C-alpha cells in the first residue's frame, strides 16, 4: 500500500505545474551557475597562479641573498580558489583567506582584499549549495504545504482514510514522494552540471570530486527530508491549505533569511569577546613592561659588529616581546574560534545553516579548511624555523642569536631556493572531513526525527472531515 501511495503521489507531483516550473528553474540555474563558475574559476586561477609565481620569485630572491631575511620577513599565505567550488563555495570569498607568518611565528589571519569587489552587495554564488538551500528548499515546501490540508479541502483524504489504511502509511507515502520528487530535480541538475564541467576541461573532475558529489547527494537527501518534514508539519497543523502555505513560508523565511542573517547579532550579544583595541592595549602594556625590565643595553641600535653582546640582549628581548604578543593574540584567536563555533551552534536551528556547515565538511571548504590551514601552517612554521636554524648552525660567522625582526645576529648567507620548504595547502582527508561532519549529521538526523514525529503525532489526531 505504501508503494501505491508513493507512486500515486509521485505521478501527481511530476505532472503538476509546480514541478515543471521548479524543474525548469533548477535546470536553468544549474546550467547558468556552472557556466558562470567555469569562467570565474578560470579568471581566478590565472590571477592566483600569477600571484603565486611572484610570491615564489620573491621568496627565491630573498633566499638567494640572505637566509635571515628569508626567516624573518613576514609573508602572507593566501589560499587558492577551490576547484570543487561549483558544489559549494562555503562563502570563502568572505572568509579570512590570508594568513601572515614568518619562520618565527604564525601572526594571524585576515580577510584579504582580493576576494570580492567591495562595491558589490554581499551575495551567494549560484552553485549547487545555493540551488538546494534556496530553490529546492522552497520547492519541497511547495510540494508539501497542501499535502494533507489540500486533500482535506477536496475531501480526498477522508475517502482514503475510510479504507483500512493506516495513517502512518498515508503520511509516510506523501512524505517519501515529496522527497523523491525533489531529489529527481537535484540529481538531474547535478548530472547536467557535471557533464558541463567534464566537457569544459577547465576543471578536473577526479575520483575525489565524485566522492564529494555522492556525499553532497547524501546531505541533500537529509536536508530535503528535513524541509519536507517541516512542510508536512505545516500542512498537518493548519486545516486550510492557504494557512499552511503561509506557515510554510514563515518557516522558510525564518530559516533561510532571518536566522542565518542575524547570527552576527547573537555572536556579539551572547558570545561577545574582548574588543581588538583592548587586546592592542594589553599587548602594549606587556611590551612596555618587558622593555622596562630588560637588562641595560637591550635597546641599543642594531648597527655594528654582529658579535656585540648588546645584540644578544636585544635579540632575547625581541624574542620575549614577540612571544608575549603572540601569547595574548593566540588566546584571542581561541576566543574568536569559540565565538564562531558557538554562534554556529545557535544558528543550527535553521536547517539551511546546518546544510551549509555540512557542505563545508563534504567539499573540504569554509571553516573546516580554515582550521586545517591554521593548524598545518603552525606545523610548517616549526619545520621552517628548524630548517633555518640548521642553515644558521652551519655558518661560523653567525653568533646564532635569533631575532625575529632582524638579520644582524644570524646567518646572512644565501640558501638554494630548492632546499627551502614552501608551504603548500593539503586538502582535508576524508577522515578529517567526517570528524567535522559527524556532529552536524547527528543534529540533522535528530531534527528530521523530531519534526517528523511531531507531524506523525499531530496527524494521528487530525480531523479529516
Amino acid at each position, binding site marked *: 500500500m505504501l508503494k501505491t501511495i508513493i507512486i500515486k503521489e509521485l505521478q501527481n507531483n511530476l505532472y503538476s505545474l509546480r514541478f515543471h516550473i521548479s524543474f525548469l528553474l533548477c535546470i536553468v540555474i544549474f546550467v547558468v551557475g556552472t557556466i*558562470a563558475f567555469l569562467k570565474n574559476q578560470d579568471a*581566478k586561477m590565472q590571477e592566483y597562479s600569477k600571484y603565486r609565481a611572484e610570491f615564489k620569485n620573491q621568496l627565491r630572491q630573498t633566499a638567494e641573498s640572505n637566509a635571515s631575511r628569508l626567516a624573518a620577513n613576514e609573508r602572507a599565505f593566501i589560499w587558492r580558489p577551490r576547484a570543487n567550488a561549483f558544489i559549494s563555495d562555503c562563502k570563502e570569498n568572505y572568509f579570512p583567506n590570508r594568513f601572515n607568518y614568518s619562520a618565527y611565528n604564525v601572526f594571524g589571519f585576515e580577510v584579504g582584499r582580493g576576494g570580492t569587489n567591495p562595491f558589490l*552587495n*554581499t*551575495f551567494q554564488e549560484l552553485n549547487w549549495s545555493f540551488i538546494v538551500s*534556496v530553490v529546492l528548499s522552497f520547492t519541497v515546501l511547495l510540494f508539501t504545504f497542501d499535502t494533507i490540508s489540500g486533500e482535506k479541502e477536496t475531501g480526498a483524504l477522508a475517502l482514503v482514510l475510510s479504507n483500512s489504511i493506516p495513517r502512518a502509511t498515508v503520511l509516510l507515502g506523501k512524505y517519501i514522494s515529496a522527497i523523491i520528487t525533489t531529489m529527481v530535480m537535484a540529481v538531474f541538475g547535478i548530472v547536467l552540471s557535471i557533464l558541463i564541467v567534464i566537457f569544459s576541461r577547465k576543471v578536473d573532475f577526479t575520483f575525489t570530486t565524485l566522492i564529494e558529489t555522492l556525499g553532497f547527494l547524501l546531505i541533500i537527501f537529509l536536508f530535503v527530508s528535513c524541509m519536507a518534514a517541516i512542510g508536512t508539519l505545516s500542512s498537518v497543523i493548519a486545516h486550510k491549505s492557504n494557512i499552511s502555505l503561509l506557515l510554510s513560508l514563515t518557516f522558510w523565511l525564518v530559516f533561510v*533569511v532571518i536566522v542565518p542573517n542575524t547570527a552576527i547579532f547573537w555572536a556579539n550579544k551572547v558570545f561577545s569577546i574582548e574588543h581588538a583595541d583592548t587586546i592592542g592595549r594589553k599587548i602594549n602594556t606587556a611590551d612596555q613592561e618587558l622593555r622596562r625590565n630588560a637588562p641595560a643595553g637591550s635597546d641599543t641600535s642594531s*648597527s655594528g659588529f654582529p658579535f656585540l653582546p648588546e645584540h644578544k640582549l636585544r635579540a632575547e628581548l625581541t624574542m620575549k616581546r614577540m612571544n608575549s604578543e603572540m601569547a595574548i593574540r593566540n588566546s584571542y584567536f581561541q576566543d574568536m574560534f569559540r565565538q564562531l563555533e558557538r554562534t554556529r551552534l545557535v544558528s543550527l536551528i535553521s536547517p539551511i545553516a546546518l546544510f551549509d556547515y555540512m557542505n563545508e565538511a563534504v567539499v573540504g571548504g569554509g571553516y573546516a579548511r580554515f582550521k586545517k590551514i591554521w593548524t598545518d601552517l603552525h606545523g610548517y612554521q616549526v619545520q621552517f624555523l628548524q630548517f633555518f636554524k640548521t642553515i644558521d648552525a652551519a655558518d661560523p660567522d653567525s653568533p646564532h642569536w635569533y631575532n625575529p625582526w632582524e638579520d644582524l645576529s644570524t646567518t646572512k648567507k644565501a640558501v638554494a631556493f630548492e632546499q627551502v620548504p614552501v608551504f603548500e595547502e593539503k586538502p582535508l582527508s576524508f577522515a578529517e572531513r567526517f570528524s567535522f561532519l559527524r556532529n552536524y549529521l547527528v543534529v540533522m538526523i535528530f531534527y528530521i526525527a523530531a519534526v517528523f514525529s511531531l507531524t506523525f503525532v499531530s496527524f494521528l489526531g487530525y480531523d479529516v472531515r
Partner: protein
Amino acid sequence: MIWKIARKEFLLNLVSARFIIGFLLCLFLIPFTVTVNIDDYDSRMRVYRVDKANAENSFKYVRVYSYLRPEVVKPPEPLSIFCQGISGNVGSRVKIWLGEKPLFATGKAAIRDNPLLNSFFSIDFVGIIAIVMSLLALIFTYDACTREKEEGTLKLQLSNSLSRHKILLGKVLGVYLTILPIVLFCYILSTILILHSPNISFSAGEWGRIILLFFASLLYFTVFIFIGLLISTRLKSSITSIIVCLFFWVFFVFIVPNLAVYMAESWKKVQSYDNLQYVLQDLGKEFNSKCDEYVKTLEAPDWGMNMFHEPGRRDGARIMSGSSKSMLELWRKLYEFSEPLRIDYADKKWNLQKAYLDSLDQQRNFAEMISLISPSEVFRLISASLCCTDVASHCRFMDRTRRYRDEFIDFLRDRKIFSSFLYITPQPPETFMTADEIIRIRTGGECKNLKELNEWMDAHDGSWKIIRKVQIPGTHYNEYPFLNLSDVPVFRWQSENIFAGLKQVFIKVAALILISIFLFYLSFLSFLRYDVR
C-alpha cells in the same frame, strides 16, 4: 462604486489569516531587525570614537613632519540602520600617505574584533521590507480574480451593470488599503525604536530621506501588487496562481540579486588586488633605487653614526637627533629630493590603482544592469542612494579625501617643509655639532676625534659603550616638544545634503513607475478578456 469594492476587499482582508500572519510577521521581524541594526550602529559608533581619538592623538603627538600623516575617520551613516548598502563592505578610516593616494578605506568595523564573522551576512530594514512586502502584496493579489471566479461571485458582480475597470481598480485600492497600514506600522515602529535609542539622532535632512524611503516602499509594493494582479487575471485557478506568484517572488527577490552579481564577477574580470600590490611594490623599488642613486651623489658625512634614530614603518617616516651636522644635512638633502619624488610616484601608482577601481566599477555597473530585472533590486538601489550608503556616496567621500591629501601636500610644499630639518629632526640646527665635537663630549674626553674612537672600538670588539659615557642633554628627540600643528589643514566631515544622489534615485523611481503602469495596463487588458464563468 470603486470605493465600495475597495472597502469590501479591505474588510475581507482585514479578518483573513493572511493579514494576521503578515502583520505578526512584521511585528516580529521589524523590531528585531531594527534592534539588530541599531546595535550594529552603536558598535560602529564605538569603533568610530576609538579611531577618531587615535587619529587625533597621532596628529597631536608628532615631533617631526615626516611622522605627520593625518587620518580621516568617517562616522557611520545614521541611515545605514535602514539600508546598509555597501557600508558593511568598506572601512571607515583613510590614512593620508604621500606615497600613495587613498584607494580604499580600511578598518571595516564589523570584523574589527573577529574576521571570522565576515562569513555571516546580515539583513537590514530595507531587506525585510523588500522580502516581506513583496510577499504580502502577492499573497493578497494572487487570488484577486481567481478566488471570486472559483466562488462564483465574480460572474454575479459582472452580471450587473458594473464595468470591469471599476472592479479592477476597486480590488487594487482594497489591497493598497490593506498593505498600507502594515508598511506605515513598520516605519512608525522603526521610528519609535530609533527615537528611544540614546545614541542616535537624525537631522532634518535625514528625516526627509526616511519619508522619501517610505514613498519608495509604497511604489515598490505597488509593482508587486500589479504582478500578482496580472498573474491572477491570466490564470483560472487560485492554486496555480499562487504557485506562479511565489516562483516569481523567489526569482526576483532571491535569485536575480545573486545571479546579477555572480554573472558580473564571471563575465567582467578584475585584476587581483594582491597582483596589483606586486606591481605597486615594483614601482616602490624603482623609487627606492632612485633615492639610493641620489644618495651616492651627495657628499659623504664625517661620521656614519645615527645617534638617536627611529625609522617609521612607512612613507619615509623618520625621526633622529644627536647625529653629526653633516649626517643630518645628508638626510635633509635626501628628503628634499625623495619626498617630491615620492609624491610623483604616488601619481604613477594612481594610474594603475585608478584602472583597478574602474574595473571594479565596470563590474558593479554590469551587475546593476542585470539586477534591474528585479523590482526588489531597483528598490534596494533607490534605498541605498536615499540612505547615502551606495557606491556613489562612498566614491564622493573618497574623492574628498583625495582632495584633502592634495591640500595637505600643498601645505607642506608651500612652507618648504620637505627642505626643512623639521621634517626629520626636532633638534634645532644651531645645536648641531661635528662628529669630533660629539665624540669628545660623549666619551668624556677619552677619545678626541673619530679616529681615536674607531681605534678604541677595534680594541674592544666593536663595542661602542664609550659613546654612552656622557649624555648630551637636549639631543634625544624625546626631549623636544611636539609640533604646533594648528595651521595644518584639517579634514572637515560634512553629512550629505538631502539632494545628493537624488538624480540617480529619480531615474530608478521613474523606471518603477513606468513598470507599474505597464503591468497595470497588461492586467487591465487581461481582465477585459477574463472568462468569469
